[in-house]
């Protein structure tokens, strides 16, 4: 590990379901270096989103610790979460540091493939565009840590691939640590440096594999053999 890694240890995360308390995450520990992209793979309902909420600090009710790289956090939630009463540019300015002028906002939008979209309202955007705005918003805080929850869900394959390319390019260019969840193995292998698989109940870290040494194709075969559920979803992930 180089300077200022992301360091996550979740010994146990409980959830109150009715009157009894159920453990949903157990013994999950990993780190990530700046510029590294981790893909968190798991079947639906395993607690991927909970893990991300713990990583960004929205959920503090767990046993363990999270050390985030110093700097700001950019997050893409599963839904775009844009304020409908604000224009796209104002949605970006909402989170941007003070003094982010129109030119800076437009520059971020151009990077995200949305030139000239600043004056539009979220209701005028397609889901794919709204996701891009959410990505632009996450990037305009110049984050040290970027967390993406199912960024490709319910997008068609072409759109998902183009969004994945934008994310990968930005992360490498700015040396951002990135963690994303997906249940789409193809996208995970396309964008990530490492693949983490959660499985079981409570979910534990069942695999933590770097893609580079084996190559995506070989790793794909290995993962599908070990975790058949990874092959059960379509090309771009659906619920």
């Amino acid at each position, binding site marked *: 590990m180089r300077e200022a890694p992301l360091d996550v240890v979740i010994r146990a995360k409980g959830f109150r379901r009715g009157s009894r308390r159920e453990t949903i995450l157990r013994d999950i520990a990993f780190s990530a270096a700046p510029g590294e992209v981790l893909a968190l793979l798991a079947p639906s309902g395993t607690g991927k989103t909970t893990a991300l909420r713990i990583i960004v600090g929205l959920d503090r009710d767990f046993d363990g610790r999270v050390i985030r790289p110093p700097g700001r*956090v950019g997050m893409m939630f599963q839904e775009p979460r844009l304020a409908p*009463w604000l224009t796209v540019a104002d949605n970006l300015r909402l989170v941007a540091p003070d003094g982010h002028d129109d030119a800076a906002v437009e520059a971020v939008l151009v990077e995200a493939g949305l030139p000239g979209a600043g004056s539009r309202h979220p209701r005028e955007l397609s889901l794919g565009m709204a996701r891009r705005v959410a990505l632009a918003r996450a990037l305009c805080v110049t984050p040290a840590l970027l967390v993406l929850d199912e960024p490709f869900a319910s997008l068609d394959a072409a759109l998902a691939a183009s969004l994945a390319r934008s994310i990968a390019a930005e992360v490498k260019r700015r040396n951002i640590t990135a963690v994303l969840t997906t249940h789409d193995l193809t996208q995970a292998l396309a964008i990530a440096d490492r693949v983490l698989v959660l499985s079981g109940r409570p979910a534990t870290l069942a695999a933590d594999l770097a893609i580079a040494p084996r190559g995506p194709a070989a790793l794909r075969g290995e993962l599908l053999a070990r975790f058949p559920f990874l092959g059960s979803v379509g090309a771009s992930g659906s619920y």
Partner: protein
Amino acid sequence: MRPAEPARRRAAGLDRLLSIAAFLLLWWLLARTSHSPSLLPGPWHVLAFAWQQTLSGDLPRNIAFTLARVAAAFTLSMLLGASVGYLMGRSRRADAWLDPWVIIALNLPVLVVVILAYIWIGLNDVAAVLAVTVAKMPTVVVTVREGARALDPGLEELAAVYHVPALRRLRRIVLPQLAPYLAAAGRSGLSITWKIVLIVELLGRPNGVGFALNLFFQNFNVAGILAYGLAFAAVMLVVETALVQPWERRARAWRLADA
């Protein structure tokens, strides 16, 4: 059905005018048939009285006093009520603590509040405005509390993750969501406020529409009562249509566009 819209609006406008004309006609007929003209003076008589009071300056002066009290009490009750309502909507503990107070305040007769304010604070404008504020505030609290409970938790998490500064959070995330509730509270609030202000003036102020009404009551001047009552209602109608309704439309604009 867009092309039919202006025609339909014109027809509705005509119906409104006819309705008002019918009311005036009925009033005039009742005044004609009533055995005592001082018990129910006709529309022209009332209008003449109002005109004379306007020329003498009494009517505008009293309306100005009342409007000033309405403005002060309305502003105070909206500011305090919205703050308390927001707090109660966000914090379960604050809600548990303050809810009984709100229920008592909602059910306390306005008259009791007014009399106690005059006894404790004195026969002055501070007491008058405070009494109206206290009487009006609970409904603002209840309405804004509803709005605060309905705030989008997703946007709140967003603000938390991105460390959006408190003031920006209030202006850009919270207030736009509360705006329809504030508009509703303001709209019902204004009509309640001016009615309470008249009672407060009647009980202990040397000027204002309520004071004038009391004077006319003691002199058995029905024309005066009708002239002041209708003139003031007309002024409040103008305030409502010129200020409150446009603001409410603006506050709801993004929601309507969404639907």
